[in-house]
């Protein structure tokens, strides 16, 4: 009998190709989105969980109350003496390590590789159980002249040849490869391509005893059964040491240490000095909600379409009943049909996921791999959901059809007086459109905010600017030669060599010396070090005084420029000539955005670059005249810099791109949001299509009679459209305040943000109404233009 059910189900689906296609595509799109988003959520939640005993590993972090930096006073760093003390004082700590990670050059055979290095101690291998594939692991870190390469870096440098015992150069030092470690998986909160001793960090020896120096990350592994919160309380006793130490260094705050579970870092940690940009639990919730909305929309859609089609199948039900089919036979029959469809959708969705995963990765900037075994539970779960959706969405039409009286069913007149059912269907359509209108509104507002960010006056001109980051002292030493050489190119207008770009100023420090600061207040001020061309190149406005001048010798040593925000904080009306820190203010620049738009413009000082600052790295910034044939200019820049620093990796970047990278996450969010809104709208549209076709079917006779009596096609379209427009109106009334609240909340994260305007809602409503109208008109038009004789024959 079951075989028979499936046979009828299958043939019925094949016979009704349009219906099956619409229903299948809706469900498949819904499931594909759901699986993809589930993969993303699974990937994001899997961070660091592959590490052995990950639930016993913690990062030592600190809060420096009063030291606000980039919007938070939490720092992911710990001083070296703290880790030494914890290891000595608390036996419940099984192992503890320090590490640092930065990008640097590894040289072999005069070929440079720009790689991310992990600088750490022997105990790293006790805390993180990193697999050693070849040679030494922990022992390799006993000496500082050895290096461990990851498998992929070893291949990159040495090919298939054995690499143990070979040497590479790092920072002019010869290091012997003494081991090969596995590549860290992509779902680890820090990655690296080689490991070497932490002692390479130049201030390491001093830092060993300095409680005020925070240059390293600290991780510890607790013994089994130990409570980290207990340990956290115990380590607060080190405040006795840190308080006086910070005070002695002139700081008006001190650190409060705490422990952060390793597994929480990726999704819950947004501190200063994170090793890599972490994910955000907010996005996980956001995408989970989207996934559920899309899946529910697709299921509701299926229900509407299945019910609408069941109107055409009552006669068949009558025959089955006459031949002896019981209610349960029919329920099973229609359920099996629904489940076949959802399973088919699942298989297609599964194939689509495999095909679309690379694009999805690009969209979200992730590296999610499809691994059938690793994702097995997810797929089994999805299969279960597919069957469940099949059951849920098939149950209503199944029960509905099986209840019909066989005599009525044979006459095909079972769809009378189903007010309660049409109420349910109408509610479902309203629900779909609430989701769709909310998503459209969200989508418009997110795009507006992003456009606002891109268009907003930054306070400087970033057009036609390119920059090259360098990590080499030679560039610093030959600055003049490079500048002159670059300016020889006809397309290069200006060149500045400075320590950072104005779009992401990271350096900050306390200042307590300025005119009138009698009570020695402390002010945290961002700082950037520039050359004579910097202000001119970026076309920054000087609102008081002057910029740096080659003619005035003291400018390179004592001159300070402040921004307007600094003046405001200092309570100054004018600044020129006033004492500030170790010099005198010569000018004030108009406020420009130092960081992203979710941070306000803070006080800043600008000084001339002095030798002791950042010799090893900085930015060569170039202003070009035009962007035609820019490839030639780029080639020239690369060649010129290479001629001075042959081992440097020269990568010419456009300032515009670098700027947009700061908003990459938002950009991705926006793209994903637009995509999902579009899909939701598409699915909701199909749900409406189902409902309209159902209504039109029900009213075929009425339409026929009206036409015979002289009604025009337009009258009929108007008649049917009116009812659906009412549903859209209800959806609009519910969705508008919901979208307003949700989007206002999202905008709260931006200090500089757009105002939500009324027309956004009007626009979302208009889109929803248009889609509804098009659907209704297409369906009704068909019925209204048909020969009324056929319509009258329906009963």
């Amino acid at each position: 009998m079951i075989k028979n059910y499936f046979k009828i189900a299958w043939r019925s689906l094949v016979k009704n190709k349009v219906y099956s296609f619409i229903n299948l595509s809706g469900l498949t799109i819904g499931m594909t989105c759901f699986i993809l988003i589930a993969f993303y959520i699974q990937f994001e939640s899997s961070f660091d969980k592959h590490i052995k005993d990950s639930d016993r590993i913690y990062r030592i972090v600190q809060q420096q109350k009063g030291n606000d930096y980039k919007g938070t006073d939490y720092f992911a760093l710990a001083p070296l003496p703290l880790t030494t003390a914890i290891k000595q004082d608390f036996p419940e700590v099984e192992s503890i390590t320090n590490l640092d990670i930065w990008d640097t050059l590894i040289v072999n055979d005069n070929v440079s590789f720009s790689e991310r290095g992990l600088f750490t101690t022997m105990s790293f291998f006790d805390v993180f159980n990193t697999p050693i594939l070849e040679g030494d692991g922990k022992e390799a870190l006993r000496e500082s002249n050895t290096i461990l390469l990851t498998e992929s870096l070893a291949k990159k440098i040495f090919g298939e040849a054995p690499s143990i015992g070979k040497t590479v150069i790092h920072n002019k030092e010869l290091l012997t490869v003494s081991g090969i470690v596995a590549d860290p998986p992509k779902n680890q909160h820090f990655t690296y391509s080689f490991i070497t001793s932490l002692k390479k960090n130049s201030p390491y020896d001093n830092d060993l005893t300095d409680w005020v120096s925070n240059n390293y990350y600290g991780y510890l592994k607790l013994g089994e059964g130990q409570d980290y919160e207990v340990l956290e309380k115990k380590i607060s006793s080190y405040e006795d040491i840190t308080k006086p130490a910070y005070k002695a260094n002139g700081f008006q705050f001190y650190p409060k240490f705490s422990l952060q579970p390793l597994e929480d870092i990726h999704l819950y940690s947004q501190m200063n000095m994170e090793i890599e940009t972490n994910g955000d639990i907010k996005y996980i919730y956001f995408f989970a909600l989207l996934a559920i909305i899309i899946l529910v929309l697709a299921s509701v859609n299926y229900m509407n379409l299945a019910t609408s089609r069941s109107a055409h199948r009552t006669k068949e039900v009558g025959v089955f009943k006459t031949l002896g089919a019981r209610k349960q036979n029919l329920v099973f029959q229609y359920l099996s049909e629904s489940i076949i469809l959802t399973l088919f959708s699942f298989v297609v969705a599964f194939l689509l996921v495999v095909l679309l995963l690379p694009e999805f990765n690009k969209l979200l900037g992730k590296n999610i791999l499809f691994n059938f075994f690793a994702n097995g539970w997810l797929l089994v779960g999805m299969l279960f959901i597919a069957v469940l959706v099949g059951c849920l969405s098939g149950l209503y039409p199944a029960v509905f059809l099986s209840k019909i009286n066989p005599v009525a069913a044979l006459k095909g007149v079972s769809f009378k007086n189903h007010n309660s059912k049409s109420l349910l269907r109408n509610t479902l359509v309203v629900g779909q459109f609430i989701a769709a209108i909310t998503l459209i509104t969200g989508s418009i507002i997110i795009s507006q905010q992003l456009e606002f960010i891109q268009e907003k006056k930054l306070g400087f001109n970033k057009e036609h600017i390119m920059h090259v980051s360098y990590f080499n002292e030679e560039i610093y030493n030959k600055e003049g030669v490079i500048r002159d050489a670059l300016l020889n190119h006809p397309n290069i207008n200006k060149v500045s060599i400075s320590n950072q770009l104005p779009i992401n100023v990271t350096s900050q420090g306390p200042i307590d010396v300025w005119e009138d600061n009698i009570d020695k207040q402390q002010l945290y001020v961002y700082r950037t070090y520039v050359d004579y061309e910097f202000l001119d190149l970026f076309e920054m406005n000087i609102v008081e005084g002057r910029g740096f001048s080659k003619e005035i010798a003291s400018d390179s040593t004592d001159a300070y420029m402040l921004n307007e925000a600094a003046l405001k904080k200092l309570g100054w009306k004018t600044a020129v000539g006033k004492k500030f820190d170790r010099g005198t203010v010569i000018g004030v620049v108009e406020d420009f955005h130092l960081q992203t738009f979710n941070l306000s413009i803070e006080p800043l000082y600008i000084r001339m670059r002095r030798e002791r600052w950042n010799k090893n790295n900085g930015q060569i910034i170039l202003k070009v005249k035009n962007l035609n044939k820019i490839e030639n200019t780029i080639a020239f820049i690369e060649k010129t810099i290479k001629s001075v620093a042959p081992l440097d990796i020269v990568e010419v970047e456009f300032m515009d791109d670098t700027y947009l990278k700061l908003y990459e996450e938002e950009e991705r969010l926006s793209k994903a949001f637009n995509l999902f809104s579009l899909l939701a709208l598409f699915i909701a549209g199909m749900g409406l299509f189902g409902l309209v076709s159902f209504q039109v079917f029900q009213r075929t006779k009425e339409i026929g009679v009206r036409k015979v009596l002289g009604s025009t096609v337009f009258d009929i379209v108007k008649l049917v459209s009116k009812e659906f427009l009412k549903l859209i109106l209800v959806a609009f009334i519910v969705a508008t305040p919901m979208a307003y609240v949700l989007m206002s909340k999202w905008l709260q994260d931006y200090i500089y943000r757009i105002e939500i305007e009324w027309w956004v809602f009007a626009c979302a409503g208009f889109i929803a109404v248009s889609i509804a109208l098009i659907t209704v008109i297409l369906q009704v038009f068909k019925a209204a233009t048909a020969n009324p004789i056929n319509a009258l024959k329906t009963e």
Partner: protein
Amino acid sequence: MIQITDLEKFYRTEEVQTIALNKLSFEVKQGEFVAIMGPSGCGKSTLLNILGLLDDPDGGSFKFNGEEVAGYNERKRSDLRKHNVGFVFQSFNLIDELTVFENVELPLIYTGVKPAERKKRVEEVLEKMQIMHRRNHFPQQLSGGQQQRVAVARAVVNNPKLILADEPTGNLDSTNGNEVMDLLIDLNEAGTTIIMVTHSEHDAKYSHRIIRMLDGQKVTENILA
């Protein structure tokens, strides 16, 4: 075999009640072929639906093989129906998604007959109805006459004691109509009781007895042969 006494059926809309069967009484013996005639709306189809256990009467008695079935629930009715009653409709009512063979097989599936036995019985009946060569065709690939043969085959495959035919030739031309009537005669001669609703005097003449109805009541009853 069938005994109805004072059978009543009403149709109610919100404000009006229509009497479809008004204290109708008659009897049909095993092996009889009875034709029921009357103008549209006289209650013929309502009667047939009640006799076929598809619908419930609102009053009176309905005895099937001596057993009172008027108050049976859906499940009992369905059981009794699938083992004892075969239907032939004016509009054939074949399932479009199933082939000729599968359509005829359907009642056997619902009565739980094993697949091998099903195959044998379906083939037998298809041979008998001379439609075996079309066994793998779908209904829409057949002519009206062929479709009605399939419908008759489906009605008899379970060897029902009673066949209810609702205007079986109503959608057919005279040649095909006569063929279907010949099939019904053959079945009746083999012992199956047949009750047929028809508008056609020609078809009614094939029966043993004609019951004429008007406004839910029996008006005349003519014994033919």
